[in-house]
């Protein structure tokens, strides 16, 4: 079969670095012009108009933090170097405080139909504590603005386990579930070394794993009550608003990737660009990437590793068609895990039962274990 091809573009710029962020980001806005120049060169080198692009995702960093003309230029370049005629979905990540009418007009003019806001919490004190530049009112205003501009597919990111009370988290959940957003991503806080938040908390996460699991269950129930269905461990959507771009990742689809630290998967090769923005702008284009070929066997493992994160699980026929072998024959431990209630199969799919969704790593470790026990 021919896989879907998506494109991911990384914009590392942020007005300020968030306390929890260990990601590739940069607050030196003087680098913006050169960075976008470089992006353009990189896309020109890897230009491919032979495949229609399925989805497009511009993430960061904070894409909305750079002057609108750069986003405009980027979208023009993408249209020049790739076939965007069949695009199903284009998402741009925005922060509430930097979302302007000018930006939204530019995005809609280019056919961007989805915007993802980093909300994280509705509690202003929490937002300040974790170094966000916006407050809850900014988010409401940005959402309203987006809807007025005709952008009705809106995601809000929420973080579970921030340094705030359980009641604060509950409030975030209640508020967000009743807002006119179509999609909620609820990620568990990960404390990464050398981040401001990690230092402030002395490496101690605010909540233990049991509380995290309780809060996750709370999120699941509340969102479900308000019409958001879980379709992936951390992603909830109203019917028909599942993020196609992310689904393509989970389904072992292919994607081009541009920008510092961006990772892609094209022609059975996974690659990742240098994380260092200075290097990204100075190395020859051909030396930006670290590439790793992925064998068909590994692809089958990835297909299951990623697919089991989906509520629907892995389609057994599709697995057999892609990898030429029955899933149960490929993974000798699958049957045993089913017997133990760690996996279940129905309607031609194998999936993780609802009560085990949050311990998927242990299940995967058992499933992908190449040793018999």
């Amino acid at each position, binding site marked *: 079969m021919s896989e879907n091809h998506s494109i991911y573009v*990384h914009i590392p710029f942020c007005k300020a670095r968030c306390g929890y962020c260990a990601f590739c980001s940069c607050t030196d806005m003087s680098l913006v012009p050169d960075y976008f120049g470089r992006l353009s060169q990189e896309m020109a080198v890897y230009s491919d108009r032979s495949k229609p692009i399925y989805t497009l995702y511009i993430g960061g960093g904070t894409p909305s933090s750079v002057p609108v003309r750069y986003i405009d230029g980027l979208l023009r370049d993408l249209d020049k170097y790739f076939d965007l005629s069949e695009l199903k979905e284009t998402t741009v990540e925005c922060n509430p405080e930097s979302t302007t009418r000018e930006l939204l007009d530019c995005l809609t003019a280019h056919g961007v139909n989805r915007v993802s806001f980093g909300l994280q919490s509705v509690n202003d004190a929490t937002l300040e504590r974790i170094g966000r530049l916006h407050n809850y009112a900014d988010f409401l205003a940005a959402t309203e603005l987006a809807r007025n501009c005709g952008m009705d597919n809106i995601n809000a990111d929420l973080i579970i386990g921030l340094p705030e009370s359980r009641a604060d988290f509950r409030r975030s959940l209640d508020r967000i579930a009743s807002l006119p957003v179509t999609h909620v991503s609820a990620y*568990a806080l990960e404390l990464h070394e050398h981040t401001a938040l990690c230092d402030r908390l002395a490496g101690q996460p605010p909540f233990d794993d049991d509380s995290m699991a309780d809060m996750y269950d709370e999120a699941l129930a509340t969102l479900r009550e308000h019409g958001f269905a879980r379709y992936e461990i951390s992603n909830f959507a109203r019917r028909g608003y599942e993020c196609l771009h992310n689904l393509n990742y989970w389904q072992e689809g292919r*994607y081009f990737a541009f920008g510092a630290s961006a*990772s892609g998967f094209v022609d059975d090769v996974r690659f990742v660009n240098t994380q260092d923005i200075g290097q990204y702008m100075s190395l020859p284009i051909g030396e930006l990437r670290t590439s790793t070929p992925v064998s068909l066997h590994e692809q089958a493992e990835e297909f299951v590793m990623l697919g089991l994160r989906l509520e629907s699980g892995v389609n057994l026929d599709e697995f057999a068609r892609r990898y030429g072998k029955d899933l149960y024959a490929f993974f000798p431990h699958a049957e045993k895990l089913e017997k133990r209630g760690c996996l279940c199969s129905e309607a031609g799919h194998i999936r993780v039962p609802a009560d085990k969704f949050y*311990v998927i790593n242990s299940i995967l470790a058992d499933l992908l274990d190449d040793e018999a026990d």
Partner: protein
Amino acid sequence: MQLIDKNGELLYNEGMSQETTRNFCIIAHIDHGKSTLADRLMEYTGQVAKRDMEAQLLDSMDIERERGITIKLTPVIMHYEKDGVVYTLNLIDTPGHVDFSYEVSRSLAACEGALLVVDASQGVEAQTLANCYLALENDLEIIPVINKIDLPSADIEGTKKEIEDAIGLDASAAPLVSAKEGLNIRDVLDAVVDLIPPPRGDETAPLKALVFDCQYDNYKGVIIFVRIVDGQVRVGTQIKMFRTAGKTFDVTEVGVFAPAMRPTECLSAGDVGYICASIKTVSDTKVGDTVTDAARPCEQPLHGYKEVKPMVFCGIFPADGSKYNDLKDALEKLKLNDASLTYEPDTSVALGFGFRCGFLGLLHMEIIQERLEREFDLDLVTTAPSVVYKVYTTQGEVLWIDNPTKLPPPTLIEHIEEPIVRAEVYSPPEYVGDVMGLCQDKRGTFIDMTYLDKHRVKITYEIPLNEIIYNFFDSLKSRTRGYASLDYELKGFTPGKLVRMDMLLNGEVCDALSIIVNEERAYSRGRQMAEKLKDAIPRQMFEIPIQAAIGNKIIARETVKALRKDVLAKCYGGDITRKKKLLEKQKEGKKRMRQVGSVSVPSEAFMSILKIDD
């Protein structure tokens, strides 16, 4: 011929008269300064230049230096001139701990005399006495040496009196030294020359040599440490051992300990040294055996050593199952110079293939485990120590059981007897109550209490050995702030209400965790073990009940709650390599776990139950 070392000192003089040779060892309680005195003697005789002195030179193993104890006997040759005559002094350093008395008896058999070192501030201790009696049994000349006279708390006259009263030795002329300060070391050397008799072997008789230790060298093969009793041995001599009849070996090297091995031309009657003869198979030599000339053998072997019986047993398994053969090789090599170590293949459902090992005591067990890990770079999982039980079956058989999993079902057992030791605890009077409380807690029977002097009481109890091996020593030390010392000897077997207690993980017995325990003790031991396991077993996808059971009866229960979150949430911009790496790490972690039914148990869990406090 003469062998002169690089400093121009006489190292070996062929045909040296036995009249100028003295073979001796040092016996002392731990901490009384035995190794320090040995260092001083070597320094004084110029065997080691002061600048090359490393504290406790003869304790060459890392473990020995770190713990400040001597485990292995170590020989060294020294030269000392007195009244114009150069004497050859062979010193064999010996261990002090109760577990290693067999090592002591080995060195004693190679000597004619012993220095009895007593700490002037501590007096005569239990272990000193025990070793002293061993020396007397071997007809050794014993020279008391009073050490640490520089300490403000030194009581020289009191110590002399104690030596005379407790051991019956004349201490009036005992050298008074401070090994630490190097004080009066010459007196010790003079006493060795004057008082210890020279060897009385026959140099012309057929070769007869006692193997008192062995070592394995990757290039030279087995190196045997010998005391030549009669005759001579040199390069080219064809030798044979008494116990491994039939095989002969050509001697490739002989030498002395200076203290490093230094080749010489020949070893003859009265000498202490080593022999290499390209012996590749470890089992071809045995400590205690007699070496003789294959062409002209002696008629009778020396009487050798009494076989020592292990008292404490445990299972030793490689943490990585594929290292079984490495463990086997390592045990074989340790056994070479530690005859008291026993081992036989053992299998466990939980731990796979390993060995059931027997030791003289707990310290011995610890030392062996540590040496296996350090010297052979092995990761081990060990099971709880056990003693050997005498099991009378309903069929009228008597079984010796040292492994809980081998215990027959209760219906086939008529009764069980357990080893009892006579334990002597020496303690300052203020801790008598604590010591007696502990002995009482450990199912001890009071025998006697004697005030040795104002500062020391000897408390004697009969206690089941399985209580001693279970944390007794640590508890004793902590209750007496380290002041009490313990000595014990096997007294016999006595019937006990003993049962096998199993640990069940998720309903399945984990064989490696079973123990034999006194019935009354089982409840608290079971609860403690369940608690330890609960902490050591990581949460898994299911709730894991941990139960302690006697037969079908559950006596304790803990629960490892089910794991609820291990998910890695975010997939940054489609970068799945991080997820893959994390998963690989998780898989690696799983490999270090043992599967007990559906439960993954880390190696640490097996070890955690060994560290239970009372």
